[in-house]
């Protein structure tokens, strides 16, 4: 079982990213579970979401304390959370921290595509793209998942964002 923790600011779409990836996992023939942070957070605050992916049905419902992968939706988060995991996926132009790090400039991808809400670039699909790549999902599984989540023009843009990040995500080890 793969356990993933997503760190994002409210409004960035961490929860949605987890759900999209869960659907993508299902499309890959796996079992999956996406858990939003259990909180009453306002837009802007730090949010934790969780994602489990497994070949067998997932029974547990508790939060993930020791994730295999941590996904970081904003560099600023590094300033307020101590991140330690084998694998990190980060929205950034550079790797920024130590370990096995996958980095992608999801903010720019989102901004370029006009995926903005209340001033925030909505990086969820771009980050989902990067993570899908890290998890070894096919881009098709992911695109289908995005298609089920959004509709119309929005779906199109988000698919584009995911594809771009899927392509552009870079690995770095240190």
């Amino acid at each position: 079982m793969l356990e993933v923790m997503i760190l994002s600011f409210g409004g960035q779409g961490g929860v949605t990213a987890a759900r999209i990836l869960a659907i993508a996992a299902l499309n890959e023939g796996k079992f999956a579970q996406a858990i939003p942070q259990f909180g009453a957070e306002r837009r802007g605050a730090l949010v934790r979401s969780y994602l489990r992916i497994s070949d067998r049905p997932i029974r547990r419902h508790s939060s993930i304390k020791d994730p295999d992968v941590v996904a970081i939706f904003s560099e600023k988060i590094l300033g307020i959370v101590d991140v330690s995991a084998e694998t990190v996926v980060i929205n950034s132009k550079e790797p920024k921290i130590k370990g096995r790090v996958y980095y992608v400039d999801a903010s720019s991808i989102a901004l370029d595509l006009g995926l903005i809400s209340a001033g925030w670039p909505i990086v969820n699909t771009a980050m989902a793209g990067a993570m899908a790549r890290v998890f070894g999902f096919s881009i098709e599984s992911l695109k289908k998942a995005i298609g089920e989540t959004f509709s119309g023009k929005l779906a199109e843009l988000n698919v584009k964002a995911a594809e771009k990040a899927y392509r552009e995500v870079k690995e770095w080890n240190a």
Partner: protein
Amino acid sequence: MECMIAKPSKGAAGKTGLWRTFKPIYHPERCNLCQLCWLYCPENVIDVSEDGITIDYEYCKGCGICAKICVKNAIEMVREEET
């Protein structure tokens, strides 16, 4: 019981300056000290003095209201640097 009693304290939500995507930049030279920005800053992070205003960036959420309210254009919103 004690755990359900809270006392006044800045930063109940942490350093909310982190929430900013845009940052209000003050241009004192344009300011007429009308204090409207102080009145309408929802986060209460603007302080006024005879010399002008100061913004507490530790908590300013970058909502942009101050910039909009200022008739003198003395506050400008600029994209926050990712640091």
